[in-house]
């Protein structure tokens, strides 16, 4: 019995001592110095064309420089990103862009959290940046998208996407007066236009121009959302001064392409001859939407 008790205890001690050595080896501090922490938040500037049906990207990239407050030395942004101040939870940067020979300076404020860790005595400390939010109230950007709030050097997605949009919708109604060639008439006639004006706005839309026979004249007629009708007057200088008019009816709503600001959209409903049509004859609608890409919305033929 005593023999059994001895071996019973000795076995337990053997297992215990073996595990002590195993455990001592396992408790060594192991240093893994790899870190993907960085203070540079990756950023992607995207220029969009805001138009009905799509918001396609523009190929042209702006030259972008960034400055920090109190420092005149610029930093070329491409291809890195916004350097976050490693000593603060907020960074203000001035972004200088050159667009079509025009300079724009935006002030962007990045707010974020920092976390400090001592990786190991051999590796040293590490600082992580995360929880990025952005104040764009002092910028001309159309929108900013925080795609990835954690800053890392090996991130799969960029931290920030900044969108600037070029808007192609307009509030200008393009009206063309056509003066077709009379094949029977051997003499080429010309209409002298003293002015064109509309019921919206006091300024003349056009003054002292001509419409040769077989040619035409396009007039840009601004409209407003306060009204749904614009009356256009064509004042000619013939034997006597004559004024002809037509009425265009339109509707307005709001259109918003993704990542761009909402904008007003005007669409032509109908155009008809006015109270004194005179030589104005037929009217045809070419494009309903008032858009920079639509050179003519409606055509009216002059007899």
């Amino acid at each position, binding site marked *: 019995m005593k023999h059994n008790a001895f071996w019973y205890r000795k076995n337990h001690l053997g297992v215990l001592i073996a595990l002590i050595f195993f*455990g001592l080896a396992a*408790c060594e501090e192991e240093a893994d110095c790899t870190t993907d922490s960085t*203070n540079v938040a990756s950023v992607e500037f995207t220029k969009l064309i805001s138009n009905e049906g799509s918001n396609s990207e523009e190929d042209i990239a702006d030259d972008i420089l960034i400055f920090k407050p109190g420092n005149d030395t610029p930093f070329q942004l491409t291809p890195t990103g916004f350097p976050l101040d*490693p000593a603060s939870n907020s960074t203000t940067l001035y972004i200088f862009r050159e667009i079509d020979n025009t300079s724009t300076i935006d002030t962007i404020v990045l707010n974020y959290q920092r976390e*400090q860790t001592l990786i190991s005595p051999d590796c040293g400390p590490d600082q992580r940046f995360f929880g990025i939010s952005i104040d764009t109230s002092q910028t001309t950007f159309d929108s900013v998208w925080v795609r990835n709030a954690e800053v890392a050097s090996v991130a799969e997605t960029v931290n920030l996407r900044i969108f600037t949009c070029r808007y192609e919708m307009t509030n200008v109604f393009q009206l063309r007066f056509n003066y077709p060639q009379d094949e029977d008439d051997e003499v080429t006639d010309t209409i002298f236009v003293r002015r064109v004006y509309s019921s919206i706005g006091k300024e003349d839309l056009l003054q002292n121009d001509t419409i040769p026979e077989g040619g035409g004249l396009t007039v840009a007629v601004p409209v407003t959302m306060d009204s749904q009708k614009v009356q256009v007057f064509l004042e000619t200088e013939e034997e006597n001064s004559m004024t002809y008019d037509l009425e265009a009816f339109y509707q307005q709503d709001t259109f918003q392409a993704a990542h761009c600001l909402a904008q007003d959209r005007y669409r032509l409903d109908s155009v008809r001859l006015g109270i004194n049509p005179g030589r104005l004859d037929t009217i045809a609608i070419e494009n309903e939407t008032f858009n920079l890409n639509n050179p003519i919305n409606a055509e009216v033929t002059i007899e």
Partner: protein
Amino acid sequence: MRKLLLSNVLAGILGLTLVNAQAVDSLDEVGKYEPLALHVGVSVNNIIRTVLRPDDTNYSFQADVVLGRYLMVAEYGWAELSRASDLESIDIAENPFQYSSRGSFFRIGPDVNLLTNQAKTSFRADEDIIFFGLRFARAQLSHDLTFVTRDDITDTNGNNNAFWPQQQLMAQNNSQAAIWFEMTAGMKVQLYRNIFLGYNLRFKFARNFLGGDPSLVPYEIPGYGFGSQDEQFRFDYYLFYRIPIKR
């Protein structure tokens, strides 16, 4: 010999009581949850660490009361450590730091003995035991890190800090708490009379920080281990003294 140990372990794990039909479990006589003994112990590895590493001070103690097959365990400890950059390291020399922390911890929870006694008549836990247990743990610490900032923007020569200059910062947290849970298993083996040696293998999980500024992550949480890791495996070795209450 090995068979004897293995059969004991397996019997415990499977919950089988290898009791001889004629033998009587002594727990039946004294009561299943009767206090049989007290153990008080000190962590040996923490003492060794304190002796070998002048930058570290670690002590932890354990006390348990044996209630039949079960033990109710309470542990307490405190720790202080400091770490500074090794100036011989090129990387660290460019990025010097100093870190220090101090704090304490406690753990409470039950253990169950899985080993029958040598006569295979009882699982009473005041002798050699193989145990499994659960712990709730909480640590309180204060710590600080002095470091130099790093800006990853490089100049034309490839040097860092091209946009933001280096600054020395101090991050500190004077009142940070952490809680976690542990699954623990181990042995207690009688060395001589009432002196026992034992180890605990601990799996620590569900670590959460409470209070304080969470921006500074503790390098080590007293009683837990590396603060940046959500889970930890750790060993502890204890020297116990048993105070018998009832045989």
